[in-house]
């Protein structure tokens, strides 16, 4: 199989997983919130009387988005107004390029790598693209010629810049432990075991960093309780002046970011596609029990494990979103700068001391 065909197929697979999951999340969010709030949730859309527990709402919503008028404010800047949602969606999607969705699967004579590229700078690439996402919000707020959108953009820029720092610094401790910036190496490292029984997942090695990363990650994805830039009951948000599929893209980008955060937490802290005690040749339990499995079966279990973890963290974010109220702008800043940042620096110190003393 040629390199390019291989890359295209894997890209197609990853894109379809991410986009399907993001679309599914719009439905899941409605059903999940309904479940939490004693409601029924979306169930009206039907095809020939067939409701499919509301799943058709995904199609109905996207059709609606496509059919709406594409509106640009009279004094808005058309170029940037159009560009903004694409930047948001692109930055969120491009992050998945280096996320390993599974191990190398042996298929016949060839092996299929379930990642698009892997290099020494993967983690930096992820952080860089995450930061670039600000431009989408900022262009949207600025080019809309609307004060609410402008306030939302300002909040968004300030919030994402502040949490970027805590996010990045929380990862340094992790990098010190793993000794690599390649996400693949990180996942492989987590296949080891601590004290002979505990999987060497990031969450056990760096529990504090995990919490900080998850918090800052949710803040980066601008969802409740950190949905300052949106704040629909306060300032409506940076996409006040957006309609049609441009709004749809922002909306989708939001959910893609949920998947991004879930994927990163999975890869960095929860072993990626690793399943505890599952080695390349089968299960190897601490007691000495051995259960042999075919390499392909191991690979498929690991791909499934990654998807399950991904799904769990998406669900967790939805639950958080429907449980907590929203922060206020200054409180959010205080949390980021005065609490998360010192904590993540302290985490580096402690990690360093432990590594040196070991």
């Amino acid at each position: 199989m040629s390199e390019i065909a291989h890359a295209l197929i894997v890209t197609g697979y990853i894109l379809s997983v991410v986009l399907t999951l993001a679309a599914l999340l719009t439905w899941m969010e409605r059903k999940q919130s309904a479940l939490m709030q004693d409601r029924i949730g979306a169930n009206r859309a039907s095809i020939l009387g067939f409701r499919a527990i509301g799943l058709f709402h995904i199609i109905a919503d996207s059709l609606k988005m496509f059919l709406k008028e594409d509106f640009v404010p009279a004094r808005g800047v058309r170029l940037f107004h159009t560009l903004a949602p694409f930047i948001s969606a692109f930055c969120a999607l491009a992050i998945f390029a280096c996320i390993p969705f599974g191990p190398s699967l042996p298929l016949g004579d060839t092996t299929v790598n379930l990642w698009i590229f892997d290099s020494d700078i993967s983690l930096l690439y992820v952080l860089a693209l995450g930061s670039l996402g600000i431009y989408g919000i900022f262009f949207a707020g600025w080019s809309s010629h609307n004060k609410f959108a402008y306030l939302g953009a300002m909040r968004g820029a300030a919030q994402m810049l502040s949490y970027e720092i805590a996010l990045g610094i929380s990862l340094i401790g992790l990098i010190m432990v793993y000794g690599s910036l390649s996400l693949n190496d990180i996942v492989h490292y987590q296949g080891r075991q601590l004290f002979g029984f505990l999987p060497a997942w990031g969450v056990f090695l760096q529990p504090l960093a995990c919490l900080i990363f998850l918090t800052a990650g949710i803040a980066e994805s601008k969802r409740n309780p950190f949905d300052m830039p949106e704040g629909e009951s306060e300032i409506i948000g940076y996409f006040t002046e957006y309609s049609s599929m441009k709004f749809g893209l922002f909306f989708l980008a939001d959910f893609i970011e949920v998947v991004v955060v879930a994927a990163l937490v999975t890869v960095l802290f929860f072993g990626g596609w690793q399943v505890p005690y599952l080695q390349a040749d089968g299960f190897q339990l601490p007691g000495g029990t051995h259960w042999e499995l075919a390499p392909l079966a191991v690979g498929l279990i690991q791909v499934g494990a990654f998807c399950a973890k991904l799904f769990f963290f998406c669900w967790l974010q939805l639950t958080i979103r429907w449980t907590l109220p929203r922060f206020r702008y200054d409180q959010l800043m205080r949390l980021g700068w005065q609490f998360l940042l010192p904590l993540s620096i302290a985490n580096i110190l402690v990690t360093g001391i432990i590594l040196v003393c070991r």
Partner: protein
Amino acid sequence: MADDMKQDPEVERRDNPAAAAAEDDDDARRMVINIGPSHPAMHGIIRIVTELEGETVRKAEIEIGYLHRAFEKSAEHVGWNGVMPYTDRLNYVSPLINNFGYCMAVEKLMGIRPPERAEYIRTIMAELSRVGDHLTCVGASAMELNAFTAFLYFMAARELIYELVEDVTGARITIAYGRVGGVRSDLPEGFIPKALGFFKTIRKNIAEVHGLLTRNRIFYDRMRDTGVIHAADALDYGIMGPFLRGTGVAHDLRKAEPYHMYSRVEFVVPTGTRGDNYDRYLVRMEEMEQSLRICEQCFKQMAPGTHQADIPPEYLDANQMVDAAKHARTECLIDREARLSPNMEGQEHRHKRQVIADDKTAAMPSLGKTYSNIESLMNHFMLVMNCHGIRPPAGEAYAAVEGANGELGFYAVSDGTGYPHRVRVHPPCFPIVASLEQVLVGGMVADIIATFGSVNMIGGELDR
């Protein structure tokens, strides 16, 4: 002379360049932002023009009147009883309290007292409405802080309140249940056990929201020390209700000037200490519990209704009744009840005479009597006929009840005709909204939402 002294602003700027420069600087740093009426948190009925410095509010101008329906003027054209449905639309979240407040003003004018059972029913229904109102207010303000789940828990509880209200009045919001001299109908059969069952669920939902919000750090930080008003300021503005009690002043009309049956029940008036959003939230949460307590005490104290009578009444169809009366076969009408349409449950004679004053000038006779004897027919006719109806003696009266937002007062002036000369409403959220221009300044944009939520502004009541 004073007008001449006032200089043209342009001239003033020319004469004092330093001040003008400072002003320009201020203007450049400030952004005027128009919140509402089409804004998610402003409900389409109020506009706040804010001047922001960054996100800090430096000036707030409140513009009201988007829901003005000329209640007071309309009242002068519909007769004393006709005002009743209009009062439903004042505070449409707790319409029963408005009904009773207006009734009390007219009763004061006419010097009639409702029977005891009617007073109990009024107390119960007013407290149910208060619970419903507080549920809406706390729930909606939590929702505006994005605690959507708490809002829906409260809406589920409010639904139960509405179901009770619907059982009694036949409607959910536009209830028109009050009557001069009492209430329209008795409580339906099985109301008390049903209500007691619902109270359990309501208490459970309130406890759940307590668990979700009260000690939630984010919620606490959003509510604590935002929208602060001091007791002295609140009193100067004439604010009453939970907004005043949040500042620590334990003023409650139900205690200060007991009406209905409030002097016979035990309840606590909860107060806050700091007068901020969090105190108001706590006051409202506690008041709901107290209201439920009041209802329960009323259920215990109330004499059993006629539903529990040993001998079920004998019914006769309305047309048979009319025929019998026409042919003077009055002996078969004694102790007979007219069979009424099911949606008039509780208005049979044996119920009606318990819940409305026995006063021909104000209270409609029960339908059974109207069908069966000429005096009641004429009485009915006089009360519903145009230009007749209730005619309080010339004079004026003010009656106030503790509405969900504070003192809800009705000032009625009669000139002795069938129409009110004037009905003035003192809406409780009017002074609160007036104080917003002071309360909002210094806070942030996000605080506007939290504070505005705790004001519980009801457009129907504010703009009338």
